[in-house]
């Protein structure tokens, strides 16, 4: 079966701010109906990529096509096909919940009846019924985010762009947002999100591009990334420096690779149980010894470094 044409296609996409290369010649393709995630530390260029897709930032060079339309040439055609949830809350605080939706519908030239019908559907879908007439200021963080997503869906877009959708939300609200995202995927909407939460990327994304300093370092499904970039399991040892050194020498031939952090030793392996047992049997004092599955977080930190990024 031939693969369906990509819904978003970037070729050599570049954005320069003066001399700073915010996005440095990246290529990617997104299949319709999938969830594609951009993962990366702050300043990696994720948001700039999003902004170029929804046409508020011009490209410095390269080609970017959304639904077959060039973003530099057919701006309004592109914008009509997408819904955007920006990173900062951009709700209209001068309006109440229902009017946020209705006024937005007007920007897409929906008729009054269409707008009301669609707004009612969305209010129900996002469980905002009780807050219909409420002022935006009175909503909780989770409700605001839901309203923002609802608003982004007012024109029934084929692509929904979410720039850090769950930043600042409590766990319940995050899970609610994710559940809604899954429902949207089932409806055939293509999701495009940026995040620096690994669990979010693991939960939602079919494919992930890890970005750092304007480049895509690697691109794969979450599980493939873990398999290819790190090993399936990690044994973490927390102890004094000397002990760690001793352990490392003892197990060196049984691990795929290790990371020595300031306070911990991470041992990557295909099978954690024998390794764990061996360290226990050494009978030396360790503060903590734990085995776990490797996560995207390990991939992320390995690829983008562990130093703080400001």
């Amino acid at each position, binding site marked *: 079966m031939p693969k369906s044409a990509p819904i978003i296609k970037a070729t050599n996409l570049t954005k320069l701010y003066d001399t700073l290369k915010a996005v440095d010649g990246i290529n990617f393709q997104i299949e319709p109906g999938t969830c594609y995630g951009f993962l990366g530390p702050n300043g990696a260029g994720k948001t700039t990529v999003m902004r170029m897709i929804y046409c508020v*930032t011009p490209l410095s060079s390269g080609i970017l096509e959304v639904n077959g339309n060039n973003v530099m040439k057919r701006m*309004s055609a592109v914008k009509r096909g997408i819904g955007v949830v*920006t990173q900062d*809350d951009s709700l209209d605080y001068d309006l109440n919940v229902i009017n946020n939706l209705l006024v937005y519908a007007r920007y897409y030239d929906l008729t009054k009846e269409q707008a009301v019908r669609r707004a009612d559907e969305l209010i129900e879908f996002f469980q905002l019924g009780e807050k219909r007439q409420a002022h935006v200021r009175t909503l909780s963080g989770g409700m605001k985010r839901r309203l923002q997503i609802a608003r982004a869906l007012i024109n029934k877009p084929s692509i929904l762009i979410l720039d850090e959708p769950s930043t600042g939300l409590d766990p319940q609200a995050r899970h609610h947002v994710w559940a809604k995202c899954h429902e949207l995927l089932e409806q055939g909407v293509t999701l495009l999100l940026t995040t620096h939460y690994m669990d979010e990327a693991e939960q939602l994304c079919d494919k992930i591009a890890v970005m750092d300093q304007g480049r895509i370092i690697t691109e794969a499904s979450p599980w493939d990334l873990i398999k290819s970039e790190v090993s399936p399991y990690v044994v973490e040892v927390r102890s004094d420096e000397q002990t760690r050194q001793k352990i490392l020498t003892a197990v060196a031939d049984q691990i795929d690779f290790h990371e020595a952090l300031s306070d911990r030793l991470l041992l990557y392996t295909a099978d954690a149980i024998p390794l764990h047992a061996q360290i226990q049997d050494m009978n030396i004092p360790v503060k903590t010894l734990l085995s776990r599955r490797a996560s995207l977080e390990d991939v992320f930190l390995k690829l983008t470094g562990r130093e703080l990024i400001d």
Partner: protein
Amino acid sequence: MRVWQRNATVYKRTWKLNILPNFFEPFLYLLGMGLGLGAYINQMEGIPYIEFIAPGLLISSIMWGATLETTYNVFVKMNFDRIYDGILTTPINPKDLALGELLWGATRGTIYGGAFLSILFLFGMGLHWGILLIFPLIFVIGFMFATIGLLFTSMIKEIELFNYFFTLFLTPLFLFSGIFFPMTQLPEAVQMIAWFTPLYHGVELSRGIFNQIWSVDLLQHLTWIIVVTLLNTYVVLRAIHKRLYN
């Protein structure tokens, strides 16, 4: 247009709260200036002082109304409430947005002017057919000052800088555009400068219409206003585009 509608939707909710001052302001000016000063200055250029200043004050009220809208209100929407960030993800582009705000600024100017005018009618001023010309003029002047306010807004990054705009630009305009005394009172150099400023031409037009002094000068003033408004619209749309699409 959609952006104009958005502002209208907001205004529909708040107008009852903020329209009253629009009526009180002219009332207070006319009482304070007209009756207070008017007691000492009986006539100015052959007409009662209160009637001399009223047409100019009308135009200045449009100026304040329109610029307030496209300075502080636009700045807050752009930089603090981040409303434009949302709007620009929709098919609205920066130029549509700017045009919508200009039209809304003109509308607010017209509301200020309309309120002022209705008070003047109450005082029995301008009750003649020629006054019909003042209605389109009010809107055009509102639009002109909306473009001036928005141009300043497109250039600044800090809201405090509006103080300069209001104190060093609008206040001198208010005082030296022939509202309170004829321009011929001022040195010729100042009169020359005044010719390059927007309020002066509006005041002259308004006074001509109120007092039914139909001369070619009025057409000159009107041409000045239209040319400046069109040029400034062009410049300001480009400036906002540059500011919001980068």
